[in-house]
């Protein structure tokens, strides 16, 4: 994927050792399993992404690694240390970036660094502050308070504070949410620099493009389980070279019933003014679609055919999983309804 090789400098160095080992992890709330028996390994020096909708269990899992919650079953080891029973030792070795509201209002950047360095008992002197701020390009903002920084600058400051104790692993929680594209790209570079300095990065994200660009490996989570874990390229390949065709028209109605019958179509949606088809053979489907529209006298505009991305992977993985499970209808939903365009779970 061209984008990835353009932004990552040299292939990163992994020494092949796992730095986080999770086995049989379970966390229940009442009768629901927020984390439902997860096995996962993060290798030293990689950027490891965790994707999933809200409620998938990714935040709960991270909280257990960070020592904020206790699992009901399973083990977590960080750099060989038991994260459940020796969470204090683990906390000394990790850095965590939470949302940027979690910064003190009345302290400026250098004072925040000084404070957090003090909390870890590490060097927080002027030289160290300069070095840390320099790494994220915030040297000029030394004396600035949080409300004087832009969104992107706050995220960079947040990440800097997570690096104060030179952690072995740093956990980033949706680091680019709410940032404009320019700031997002800057932050990607920052994160790549973090990996380049030898720190393992675990990040959660909603943005598929981000996972594509940054992550060496991605775990896709849904309903407390890891349903896939591989490099982004491999995950896309699993879809079998699928592509997506979208188009608009003044009224799809007349042809909507025949969309799923077009050659090589895997899933289809056609309602109102928009249609979307997923296909394993772009050309065959496209030709048939154009013929169909032509015969029905429908003018298609904004015709678009694109290769599958991680987003499609995610949709197909979770859509398919949802279809395949036999579940009792909950809240009026019927089981096994397939071909749903988007899954939105509450909370």
């Amino acid at each position: 994927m061209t984008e990835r090789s353009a932004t990552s400098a040299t292939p990163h160095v992994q020494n092949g050792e796992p730095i986080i080992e999770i086995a049989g992890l379970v966390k229940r709330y009442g009768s629901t399993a927020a984390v439902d028996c997860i096995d996962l390994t993060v290798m030293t020096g990689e950027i490891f992404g965790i994707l999933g909708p809200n409620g998938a269990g990714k935040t709960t899992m991270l909280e257990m690694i960070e020592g904020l919650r206790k699992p009901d079953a399973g083990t977590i080891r960080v750099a060989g240390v038991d994260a459940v029973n020796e969470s204090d030792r683990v906390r000394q070795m990790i850095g965590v970036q939470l949302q940027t509201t979690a910064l003190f209002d009345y302290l400026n950047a250098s004072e925040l660094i000084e404070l957090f360095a003090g909390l870890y008992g590490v060097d927080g002197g002027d030289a160290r502050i300069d070095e840390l701020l320099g790494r994220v390009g915030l040297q000029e903002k030394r004396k600035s308070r949080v409300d004087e920084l832009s969104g992107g600058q706050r995220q960079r400051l947040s990440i800097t504070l997570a690096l104060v104790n030179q952690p072995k692993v740093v956990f980033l929680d949706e680091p680019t949410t709410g940032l404009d594209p320019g700031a997002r790209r800057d932050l990607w570079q920052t994160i790549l620099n973090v990996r380049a300095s030898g720190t393992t990065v675990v990040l959660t994200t909603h943005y598929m493009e981000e996972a594509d660009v940054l992550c060496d490996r991605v775990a896709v989570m849904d309903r407390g389980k890891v349903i896939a874990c591989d490099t982004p390229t491999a995950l896309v390949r699993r879809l079998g070279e699928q592509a997506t065709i979208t188009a608009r028209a003044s009224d799809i109605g007349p042809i909507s019933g025949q969309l799923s019958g077009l050659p090589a179509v895997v899933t289809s949606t056609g309602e109102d003014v928009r249609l979307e088809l997923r296909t394993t053979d772009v050309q065959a489907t496209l030709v048939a679609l154009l013929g169909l529209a032509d015969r029905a006298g429908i003018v298609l505009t904004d015709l678009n055919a694109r290769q599958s991305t991680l987003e499609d992977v995610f949709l197909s993985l979770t859509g398919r999983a949802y279809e395949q499970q036999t579940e009792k209808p909950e809240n009026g939903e019927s089981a096994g309804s397939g071909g749903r365009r988007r899954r939105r779970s509450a909370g």
Partner: protein
Amino acid sequence: MNALLSMIKANLKMTTRNRQAIFWNLAFPAIFILIFGTVFSRDMSVEFSVGIVGAESQLKSTTTATMRGSDAFSVHTDGTSDAELKQLEDGDRDIVLVFGDVPASGGQPEVQLYYDETAGPNANIAISVVRQVLLSAAQGENPVTVSETPVTSNEITFIDFFVPGILAMALMNAGVIGLSTAFVIYRERGILRRIKVTPFPLTSFVLARVLTQLVVAVAQAVILVGMARLIFGLTVHGNVFLILLVIIVGALAFLSIGFAISGFARNVESAASYANLVTFPMLFLSGVFFDIDSAPGWLQPITKVLPLRFLVDALREPMTRGKGLSDIWMDLVALLATFAIGMTIAIRFFRWDSRSA
């Protein structure tokens, strides 16, 4: 230990930059003192009320005549020595002069000058003026022996009465409002979580906040009392260390209430509402603005269980009358009990996370 000091240092920096907090903790009570002090202060009249008693002598009559002739004095000569001294104690006299007998060998009689030691700068002025009169009355013939004896009067100026009450109010607001909103904000914004993922224990975080609050409490006291002293001539009697102890115990009691509120308040708005709900009634029923003993009988039992009442009394007695630990120990115990109850509730209800479970 260093981590704790880092946290306290950061807390103090933040407190001094928090303009809202500075307003509520300093400017607000200071304004009270300025307004009430100006409106209700007794006139700083330059008229001295002098009682003159004792054996007759040339000195005495000359002194009496001189004082009578001056607008600066209102002279009272018809009382007995005891009666006049009683008046002095009641604050109705500034000076009482007791003239002794003329010595058989000649010379001036001894003069005992009694003054009200709680009158502050007024007393000094009175003494020097009276001394002048005595000296001129003696006309340099023979030196006059004047022995000065201080007497504690029960008279408390308005400022003496008011400032301890306002100080108690300031301590209460800083503790209850300050701490309740602070912790709810920390929780809502994820700051508690952020601290929780570091090796720094949350208990140390709370301790740092408490210690910072105590430093602020002492600073409040010093600034407010200093201001009152400078502008209105407030005199602080009593043992400074005792007063410091009261300030610390009082601050602890109120910050535990603030802490308790932050335990079950869901967000900042409700925390502030609970805080006001607690502080406002106390403000008017604890003797801050007027002597609560003059309140109706049915109200009295309520006022006797209010933490602010304990603090107001525990501050007022030493500050205005120089009372000691033996007089206020019950108030201190009550404040400590408040602290214990508040902390129990806080620990029982406090959630470190705004999300469930």
